[in-house]
């Protein structure tokens, strides 16, 4: 992948008359490490693992290693609220499902990380169901998402310890936004506006997991990350154009991450982790877990 700028990728896609996902696949192959078949094969495997994780998580019988999370995807799969039966609720259920599988030491695809692994499959498989999309289309979606993630990695960060949750579920939501526009047949320019419109909504998001575990609030942040991506996609497809160029929005995410206090970067020193209840829950769980083995 040769791009360190989404603007460059857009120019290439526009010049060649191809979508963002197709441009991403071509750039990956041109980098010379793998053939098109190998890349598509790996993305197909990722898709299969995502599909399985969603199915497993939605059953509702999983508990995390610490016991703090589990069973909520099942509740959303049987939602009772005003949005029940819609794409929106489906995305929430799927995102929760993948994260509950992750927290229970099940098999997932880090996208871009394990902590943000629910957003992209949550959205993609929501759309696959509502719009009846085949795997070939979904693979192009993954490629578009991968391109956005790669540019975030180069220009900003994909690590909560470095850049807060905006760099994990925030980046994941931006990736999902690109994937969503791609699989719905939108052009590269629309996809990048969806990325910018999504990411502006996650800027500044801190990483504050209870006890440092990838459970609370991470599991729920994947669901709300999916919601943010849906908002970005809906606005972009309606023709909304975000005035700040997408590369500059990504740079902003990096800049905010670098200046974020260390308490808000995965250390469990601030945010929800530092609340009285957050501390109490984490302490109880960690002591319980360490009991038999460590001193």
């Amino acid at each position, binding site marked *: 992948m040769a791009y*360190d700028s989404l603007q460059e990728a857009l120019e290439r896609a526009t010049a060649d008359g191809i979508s963002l996902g197709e441009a991403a696949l071509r750039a990956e192959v041109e980098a010379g490490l793998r053939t098109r078949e190998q890349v598509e094969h790996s993305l197909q495997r990722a898709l299969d693992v995502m599909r399985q994780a969603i199915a497993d998580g939605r059953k509702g019988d999983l508990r995390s290693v610490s016991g703090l999370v589990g069973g909520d995807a099942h509740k959303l799969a049987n939602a009772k609220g005003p949005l029940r039966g819609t794409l929106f609720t489906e995305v929430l259920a799927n995102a929760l499902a993948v994260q509950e599988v992750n927290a229970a030491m099940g098999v997932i695809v880090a996208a871009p990380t*394990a902590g943000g692994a629910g957003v992209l499959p949550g959205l993609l498989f929501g759309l696959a169901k509502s719009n009846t999309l085949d795997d070939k289309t979904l693979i192009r979606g993954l490629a578009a998402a991968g391109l956005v993630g790669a540019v975030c990695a180069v220009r900003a960060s994909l690590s909560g310890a470095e850049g807060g949750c905006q760099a994990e579920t925030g980046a994941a939501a931006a990736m999902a936004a690109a994937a969503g526009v791609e699989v719905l047949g939108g052009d590269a320019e629309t996809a990048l506006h969806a990325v910018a419109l999504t990411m502006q909504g996650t800027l500044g998001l801190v990483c504050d997991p209870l006890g440092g575990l990838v459970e609370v609030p991470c599991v729920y942040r994947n669901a709300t990350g999916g919601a943010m991506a849906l908002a970005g996609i809906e606005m972009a497809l309606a023709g909304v154009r975000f005035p700040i160029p997408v590369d500059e929005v990504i740079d902003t995410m990096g800049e905010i991450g670098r200046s974020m206090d260390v308490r808000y970067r995965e250390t469990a020193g601030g945010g929800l982790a530092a609340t009285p209840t957050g501390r109490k829950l984490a302490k109880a769980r960690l002591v319980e877990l360490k009991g038999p083995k460590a001193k």
Partner: protein
Amino acid sequence: MDRQTTTRPFARACTTARLRDYLPPMVSLLDIIGPVMVGPSSSHTAGACRIGLFARGMLGSTPEKALVELHGSFARTGVGHGTDRAIAGGLLGYQPDDERLRGAVDDAAKQGVVVTFENTKLRGEHHPNTTRLTLEKGGKKVTVIGSSLGAGRIMITEIDGYPVEISGSFPVLVIVAQDKPGMINAVTGALAAEEVNISTMRVSRRQKGGDAIHIYELDAPASAAALEHVRELPAVKHARAIDRVS
């Protein structure tokens, strides 16, 4: 090309903007959409498993006894992230996407592998997610220090007291040989004779004239013949070929 994509994740783990500037901006799509792994944390679970796998490779097989010392964040939140199970799984030869990782601590016990976990504070500068593994089997013993850099990427930083830098993204040949002129030439000659291409190499030592450690990252695993060829060199004390772990 190869080198660029594999050094990039390390740059990501380094927070200094300076190191970033030295490295070309190359990331594979498959670094971002992946790895496929057992949760919950790419650093505390997948990376930890890979360090275990590498140490197992250094020993050559499943250990009889293993001391797992957890440092920094691995010590603080490792148990909740399954770091203990992931390392035990790596020692048993399980890959990061192997669902058996969940039960790896119990599996080790069933197989008669005595694994002891201890929290520790390693001396010197170490990444927050670091472990020191001391493995024993028969008369053999190997000590490996490795760090998990995020996104499942690892860096092995010490083997038996020698400082090293191994990403585990390539097959590796680790050699301990007498520190004397011509040794690199002899080893690379032996590899060339077997048509094994070297991607990167590094030689270091604890003191002049003692033993030196050679680390060769290779484009393809060293063949049995190449390994045999290297082992036959008079000044080579140990040679071990380890497959890529990521």
